């Protein structure tokens, strides 16, 4: 009997042998790992856990997984979770993005798509109620995000209507796709969807690119999966929306006001590759985006009333026609203040370009900022780059983004992501790696989100937030204390719902219980499900390889720059407290039942039903 809240089956695609079939997972696994980030990790272990260190993330053996969770589409803010062995951290990241693809997949009767192997020519996968099929995508290979979306929209809609002509108008399919960056396997490229939504962390765009997989498209017409207690769910659904509607300022501003306030209030915004974190450029304030550029002021994703997204459009000047979301805070900062740019119009242009190229707005822009600092310090010269790369020069960063996406010249090195680019450039320039890694702001290879830890005023990032995070610099899953975030981001990324659609925890967990019928509580998630998922991800991270393996404790650390004193703003001189980080790291390991080097202890693995990890963890102790 299909577990409640699940469509009940997953599409399994082997691209090398062009074999497509359905696969299911025992109810016990679903109860333990739920979906998305958690279930993805378990699938990865079952498939390639044994030879994890040897698997090349960009090789055919790596598995690209797009999963929903039991609450996706039913609870406000439906998202898709992309995961697999990460080409950036060599561990795993539960990288989510809001998209209609998620609930379309579920209404087509699938909870996820698992892709292994490598296609010999560009293809995309179409999932409908009749099952999955592999279709040619050669005419799509090389197209930018906006083009891909337009062409696929029409092509698939026409195809589905032709198959069932008199059923009436066919709504558009949902889809996830990669841009040129993913196709050219830029390591931190992301999986794009809905023009400006991205599963940004983890570099899964390059994993799709490595499999010649241009897109996965889904269109279903069935109902959302049955739930355990329908009437309870309907009541909780109403109450959840009432809560979301009550948050007026967030609905009004979305994250589009952060570009000024994070820098000005919290001094934790990346400015010129994190050389500073404070600014007071009023030209970059929310109203300056809203009044001139927001053509739609409440743009929501499936089943969500927050409407934190906005549609911006540049209507005049050289970048006329650029369309993207507010941009959301991460891209306001990374494609704005991080480049020394405080002009909303330029910021919208660069955000739209980065989305269309398929770069990760955070990872890609971090690497571009890193290159600009090397240029500032003379390590990279105009000859190396091929053009002048001054801070604040939008044209230069526009070219740099394209050069990296198409791996031209220095772009080929920078396409390896900030960490590996640092090592390569050190080699090229005959410098010691440390001299380059000083400016690389990453943790475990994953470029840090736009929330610094030095001011300690930020609402997200503090001392060990990134240091011990199994998803490295991922700001959406920063660690607080090894306890709270387990029922926070670990839960939302496994139930695959939006972090911003959080309602009071009892309501969310009652909702989860009413949907699945599993005896989930905040407590059970914080003591068992959460630690189990995080420990499994920690194991992957520790195994690492093949090109990089992280050194326990030494690499469970903030980037060097986060220990330099802040040079400006009200918190000038302040920095992350290294001693506090060391102490809290130990407490964190202890809380999760890991030894002082962060290796999961034997009894912890037993307790969390992760016995299968003992053999490989033993070797690391």
């Amino acid at each position: 009997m299909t577990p409640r809240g699940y469509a009940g089956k997953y599409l399994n695609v082997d691209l090398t042998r062009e074999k497509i079939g359905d696969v299911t997972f025992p109810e016990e696994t679903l109860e333990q790992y739920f979906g998305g980030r958690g279930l993805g990790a378990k699938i990865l272990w079952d498939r390639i856990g044994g030879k994890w260190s040897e698997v090349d993330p960009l090789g055919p053996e790596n598995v690209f997984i797009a999963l929903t969770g039991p609450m996706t589409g039913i609870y406000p803010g439906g998202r898709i979770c992309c995961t697999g062995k990460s080409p950036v951290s060599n561990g795993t990241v539960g990288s989510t993005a809001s998209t209609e693809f998620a609930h379309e997949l579920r209404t087509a009767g699938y909870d996820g798509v698992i892709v292994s192997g490598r296609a010999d020519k560009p293809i995309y996968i179409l999932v409908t109620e009749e099952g999955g099929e592999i279709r040619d995508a050669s005419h799509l290979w090389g197209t930018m995000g906006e083009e891909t979306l337009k062409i696929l929209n029409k092509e698939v809609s026409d195809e589905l209507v032709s198959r069932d002509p008199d059923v009436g108008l066919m709504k558009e399919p949902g889809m996830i796709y990669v841009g040129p960056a993913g196709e050219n396997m830029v390591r931190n490229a992301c999986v794009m969807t809905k023009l400006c939504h991205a599963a940004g962390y983890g570099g899964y765009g390059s994993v799709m690119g490595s499999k010649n997989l241009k897109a996965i498209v889904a269109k279903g017409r069935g109902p959302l999966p049955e739930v355990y207690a329908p009437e309870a769910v309907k009541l909780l659904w109403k109450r959840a929306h009432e809560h979301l509607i009550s948050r007026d300022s967030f609905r009004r501003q979305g994250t589009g006001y952060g570009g000024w306030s994070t820098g000005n209030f919290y001094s934790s915004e990346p400015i010129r590759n994190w050389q500073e974190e404070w600014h007071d450029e009023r030209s970059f304030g929310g109203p300056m985006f809203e009044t001139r550029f927001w053509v739609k002021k409440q743009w929501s994703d499936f089943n969500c009333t927050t409407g934190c997204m906005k549609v911006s459009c540049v209507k005049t000047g050289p970048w006329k026609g650029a369309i993207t979301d507010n941009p959301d805070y991460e891209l306001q900062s990374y494609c704005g203040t991080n480049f020394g740019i405080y002009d909303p119009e330029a910021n919208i242009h660069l955000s739209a370009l980065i989305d269309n190229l398929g770069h990760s707005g955070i990872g890609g822009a971090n690497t571009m900022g890193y290159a600009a600092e090397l240029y500032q310090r003379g390590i990279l010269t105009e000859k190396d780059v091929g053009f002048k790369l001054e801070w604040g020069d939008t044209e230069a960063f526009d070219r740099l983004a394209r050069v990296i996406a198409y791996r031209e010249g220095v772009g080929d090195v920078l396409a390896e992501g900030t960490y590996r680019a640092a090592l390569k450039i050190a080699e090229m320039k005959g410098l010691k790696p440390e001299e380059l890694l000083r400016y690389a702001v990453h943790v475990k290879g994953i470029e840090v989100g736009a929330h610094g830890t030095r001011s300690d005023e930020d609402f997200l990032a503090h001392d060990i937030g990134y240091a011990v995070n199994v998803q490295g610099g991922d700001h959406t899953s920063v660690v607080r204390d090894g306890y709270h975030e387990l029922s926070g981001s670990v839960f939302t990324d496994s139930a695959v719902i939006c972090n911003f659609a959080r309602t009071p925890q009892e309501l969310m967990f009652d909702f989860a219980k009413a949907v699945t019928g599993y005896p989930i509580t905040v407590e059970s998630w914080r003591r068992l499900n959460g630690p189990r998922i995080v420990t499994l991800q920690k194991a992957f991270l520790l195994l690492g390889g093949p090109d990089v393996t992280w050194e326990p404790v030494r690499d469970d650390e903030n980037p060097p720059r986060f220990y330099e004193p802040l040079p400006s703003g009200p918190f000038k001189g302040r920095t992350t407290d290294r001693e506090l980080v060391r102490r809290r790291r130990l407490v964190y390991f202890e809380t999760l039942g890991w030894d002082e080097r962060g290796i999961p202890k034997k009894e912890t693995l037993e307790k969390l039903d992760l016995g299968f990890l003992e053999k490989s963890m033993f070797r690391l102790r």
Partner: protein
Amino acid sequence: MSSIWIVRDYENCSGCRRCELACSMHHEGWMWPEASRIRVFMPFPGVEVPHLCAQCDDYPCVESCPVEALSVDGGTTAVIVDEETCIGCGACAKACPGTVPYLHPRDRKATICDLCGGDPECVKVCREAGYNALRLVHEGMSGHRKLFARNPVDVAKDLAVKFFGEKGEELIV
């Protein structure tokens, strides 16, 4: 009285100016658009901008007053003008990033929105007409407020581009 703020969505403003009438009727007893604490600018027809105090977090107007005629209402966070003390020098208007205060046509006293003690009349008539260009929210002090103290002509320039695209840049000079 919890701290309140008037959210203003310029795009929704219809230009009916009922806020000016409601405000002046409340404070002056009769319709007096030029004595209303909220004044609707229209640098170009169709581009109407309601202009009113944004209660900046650092209150530059209160700081700039040479005779301390301006104070802050602890409850509503509104700026309160002591008419006797005010000498009509206009310092507060110059200090305000959006030049919101102005001298009353009757007695050249500084005139600034006092949020009607917590239940603004302008918001009522705007909501009644369904425009929601002015909305009352119960939110604490925030640094974003000051960003809304902008010269209405600058706001209008942005609105014109949003409404009319390229043509918008020629309309407000």
